[in-house]
């Protein structure tokens, strides 16, 4: 694929991600905010595909867009008694929030633009990581392999599931 096609894809995804994220934090109805969040997550999966991380794009779609968003929609439907509308925005909080985020974004953009990155030597041919390498790294216990974090994450997820049931159930 040529560079210009990649650039067009990137700009399209960037427009989707930034536009949808702004709408997600400004939408008055919570259900619409959740829908805009879905578009941000799908756009991020597109970015992973553009970077040739195909497995990560699949995980992003199935865990975030499939799992986390369903949780959000359940929670919104269970907690929106008064017609799915949040109360009007507090005008006093918008100015400091805008100031903080714009100042932070300015600092981050200046820092990124001043930095000269030393790109690593590109991999020849296909840059996609094959599934066997991912599985070996995830299940091995050697150097640069991730069996211990994987198991710890499994225990964390179990604890979180039990804790969520314990917290959310009726007395």
């Amino acid at each position, binding site marked *: 694929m040529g560079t210009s096609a990649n650039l067009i894809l990137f700009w399209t995804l960037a427009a989707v991600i930034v536009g949808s994220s702004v709408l997600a*934090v400004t939408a008055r109805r919570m259900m619409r905010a959740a829908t805009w969040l879905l578009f941000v997550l799908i756009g991020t999966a597109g970015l992973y595909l553009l970077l040739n991380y195909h497995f990560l794009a699949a995980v992003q779609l199935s865990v975030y867009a499939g799992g986390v968003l369903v949780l959000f929609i359940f929670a919104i439907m269970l907690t929106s008694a008064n017609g799915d509308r949040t109360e009007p925005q507090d005008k006093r909080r918008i100015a400091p929030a805008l100031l903080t985020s714009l100042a932070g974004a300015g600092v981050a953009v200046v820092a990124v633009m001043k930095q000269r990155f030393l790109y690593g030597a590109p991999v020849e041919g296909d840059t996609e990581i094959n599934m066997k390498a991912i599985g070996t790294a995830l299940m091995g216990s050697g150097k640069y392999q991730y069996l211990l974090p994987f198991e710890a994450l499994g225990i964390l997820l179990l604890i979180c599931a039990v804790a969520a049931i314990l917290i959310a159930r009726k007395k």
Partner: protein
Amino acid sequence: MIPMHYYLILSAALFFVGVYGFIARKNLLAVLISVELVLNAVEINFCVFNRYLYPQQMEGMFFSLFGIAIAAAETAVAIAIIMNIYRNLQNIDVRHIDSLKH
């Protein structure tokens, strides 16, 4: 190849949109959605650094992978807490959650 700066500036924009929402919104679920935006920005950064600076390794991808899993666990617990708050107070506005005991 797309310059790396483009990705980093995109994820910085996403991050600070999330920060804006975290401060400005009052609905607890909207705050949680903003946190998800911030986490997404960080995960994009991990992948971009991995792909451009160390293309032979895959540590950044695994960090993103574990980050996604931890974000899912965190969302489950946060939503359980929000449901509990809603059951006790009948709304999820952050201004009403200023006392720990009832």
